């Protein structure tokens, strides 16, 4: 069975296959020896089956998107799973009809043209019905996609990705493919009869027999050409994510480890970068988007990394708040990718911290808690003082490690892409901490907390002060009465999304008062705007982000805005008309509130945009 109109499809499909195989082999060869070993070990293990399950759930059914936004999930699922159903159905149809399992791929795809009147038992009708149902599912998803391009609000999105020309061309052909298939099949049904519930209706509605005789072959040509051109564009557009995402899920299940360095065309990172579909889920969650800054979001960052140019400014500008990583349905490690890009850009940065002399502690009393307030604690003495008072009150024996001189924890250097250069800082701080003979390290800064727990390899546990204060409340070393003040809690990026600590600060606030609900909180919390994650974002833009965040925080007119990060506190208090407090300050202050029993409510919460 053959007709020349299958040629565009065959050519497009073959070129895609060759390009894909060549690129994948190149990327796999670039993997580290350890990772290659893991792939070999994982190949014939249970993880492969688990990966197949995940491919079905995420690459085809898109359950993660479905859970967040059902309509958007249905759009993605119907296109992907519907197409998958068509492929499986085509295979079954040809297998059933010819009795051979292996047939040329074009035979299954253009089956209705070659065999307009399939005969058989009831099975034939079932297959026909199944195929047309699958096509209808795909077309329903496609119509939502078209509507989404015109009116994104319909599917509950505030922003969609602005695509570059290559992606637009691929998108155009993808959109053409399925309507053309429907029309071509309808024409064949109009000429020869047959067909199931869909094509019989469409053929009788739109095509008379005479017209169909004329149009049948051109329509099949058009369908084949559209399909061929889409496959041709696939490896050079964002649709490369379709096969790559599946490979990446396999690699992840086989346990490959992230590779050091910035290599978007080599190894694991290549698979990760190319599995971004540019779906735009990261746009809506980005705090900068609400402030009208729409140039550096992850979808654009990854796209430029793939293109290999113009990613520099984008990489440096982002605030690294981690909201996009949290929302990414593909699970791309966007934060480390961005930091890798930064360290590639600033690879010549050459810092020298040898002026920090080592300390040698001969003997020290044991102490319960080593308190570390960090750089930001120094410009927020009130927070530090509050924590100290609370520790005194609870009768905790502590040493304030950096009361007189402090060394930065090193995370800011890592955020600037100079993680390698922070080694000296880590070493000196570790010496200082180990020299204290403490049982627990408590820090008031989430930035330090995150870096201490992930990079320091300390011999004592680390806690953020919110966690430690909650422990004190739980063990009743610290007692608080519930007041009637209303608090809005701002989740610091580094503490919430960064260290997954959402509950302790909230529990503390519940203990002393009421907590107001916010429209975006916990892992969807907005960034305060002055996160040290950004290197180049201009002051006015940061202020816009802060103003936007404050609008959300003052939604339900709380009495206080509370946060657990000295930097967030500093930034928010500059522009806020409501008082901004650190958790520790609230815990310290609330005693007085209970004694007085007064309730001072702000009449109208408003946000001052200019500081």
């Amino acid at each position, binding site marked *: 069975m053959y007709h020349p109109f299958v040629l565009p499809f065959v050519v497009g499909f073959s070129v895609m296959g060759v390009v894909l195989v060549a690129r994948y082999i190149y990327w796999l060869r670039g993997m580290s020896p350890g990772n290659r070993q893991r792939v070999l070990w994982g190949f014939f293990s249970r993880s492969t089956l688990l990966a197949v399950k995940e491919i079905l759930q995420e690459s085809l059914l898109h359950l993660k998107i479905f859970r967040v936004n059902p309509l958007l999930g249905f759009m993605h699922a119907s296109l992907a799973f519907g197409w998958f159903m068509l492929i499986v159905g085509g295979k079954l149809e040809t297998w059933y009809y010819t009795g051979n399992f292996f047939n040329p791929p074009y035979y299954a795809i253009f089956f209705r043209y070659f065999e307009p009147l399939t005969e058989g038992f009831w099975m034939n009708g079932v297959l026909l019905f199944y195929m047309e149902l699958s096509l209808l599912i795909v077309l329903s998803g496609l119509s939502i996609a078209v509507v989404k391009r015109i009116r994104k609000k319909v599917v509950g999105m505030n922003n969609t990705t602005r695509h570059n020309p290559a992606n637009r061309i691929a998108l155009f052909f993808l959109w053409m493919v399925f309507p053309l298939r429907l029309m071509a099949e309808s024409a064949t049904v109009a000429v020869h009869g047959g067909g199931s519930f869909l094509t019989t209706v469409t053929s009788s509605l739109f095509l008379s027999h005479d017209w169909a005789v004329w149009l049948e072959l051109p329509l099949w040509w058009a369908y084949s050409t559209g399909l061929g051109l889409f496959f041709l564009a696939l490896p050079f557009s964002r649709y490369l994510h379709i096969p790559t995402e599946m490979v990446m899920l396999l690699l992840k299940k086989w346990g490959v480890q992230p590779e050091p360095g910035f290599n978007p065309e080599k190894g694991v990172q290549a698979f990760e970068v190319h599995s971004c579909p540019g779906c735009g889920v990261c746009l809506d969650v980005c705090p900068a988007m609400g402030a009208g800054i729409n140039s550096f979001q992850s979808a654009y960052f990854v796209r430029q990394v793939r293109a290999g140019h113009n990613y520099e400014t984008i990489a*440096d500008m982002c605030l690294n708040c981690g909201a996009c990583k949290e929302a990414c349905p593909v699970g791309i490690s966007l934060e480390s990718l961005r930091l890798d890009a930064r360290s590639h850009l*600033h690879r*010549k*940065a*050459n*810092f*020298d*911290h040898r*002026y*920090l002399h080592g300390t040698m502690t001969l003997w020290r009393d044991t102490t319960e808690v080593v308190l570390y307030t960090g*750089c*930001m604690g*120094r*410009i927020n003495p009130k927070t530090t003082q509050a924590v100290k008072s609370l520790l005194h009150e609870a009768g905790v024996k502590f040493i304030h490690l950096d009361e007189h*001189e*402090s*060394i*930065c924890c*090193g995370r*800011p*250097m890592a*955020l*600037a892409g*100079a993680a390698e250069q922070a080694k000296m*800082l880590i070493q000196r701080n570790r010496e200082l901490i180990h020299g204290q003979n403490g049982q627990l390290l408590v820090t008031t800064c989430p930035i330090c907390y995150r870096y201490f727990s992930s990079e320091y390899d300390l011999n004592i546990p680390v806690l953020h002060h919110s966690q430690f204060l909650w422990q004190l409340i739980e063990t009743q070393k610290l007692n608080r009465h519930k007041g009637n003040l209303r608090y809005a809690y701002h989740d610091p990026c580094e503490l919430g999304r960064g260290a997954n600590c959402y509950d302790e600060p909230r529990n503390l606030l519940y203990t002393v008062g009421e907590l107001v609900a916010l429209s975006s909180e916990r892992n969807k919390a907005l960034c305060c705007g*002055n996160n*040290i994650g950004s*290197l*180049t*974002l*201009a*002051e*006015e833009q*940061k202020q816009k982000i802060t103003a936007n965040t404050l609008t959300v925080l003052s939604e339900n007119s709380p009495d206080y805005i509370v946060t657990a990060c000295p*930097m967030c506190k*500093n*930034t928010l208090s500059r522009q806020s008309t409501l008082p901004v407090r650190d958790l520790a300050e609230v815990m310290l202050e609330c005693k007085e509130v209970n004694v007085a029993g007064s309730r001072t409510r702000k009449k109208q919460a408003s946000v001052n945009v200019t500081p």
Partner: protein
Amino acid sequence: MINFGYTASESRHIDMDERLHPAIEKMLHREPSLKECIACGRCAAVCTAGYFTGMQFYRLNLMAHRGLINEMKQAARACMLCGKCQMTCPKGVNIRHGVLLMSQITDVLDV
């Protein structure tokens, strides 16, 4: 020029009409907010590295305008990028990015 009655050593003058070193020009192009600095010294007052080495960011910026590139680069290398200076800066200068560029100035901003 208006005479305010002050005297200053000729060698310490910064003549804004004079052309800057090309590498400095490039640096200012990459981080335009550096031009905003008014040398108020808040950055120096809170500096972590300054505590140990006497590094002062506003002075680095003045060095840049005086063309003292090597001195500036050497002094910038002490920075820990902690960002306290940025929190206190009244003009919103992206000091961390500035220092990052200063520390690698002749390597990256080739002329």
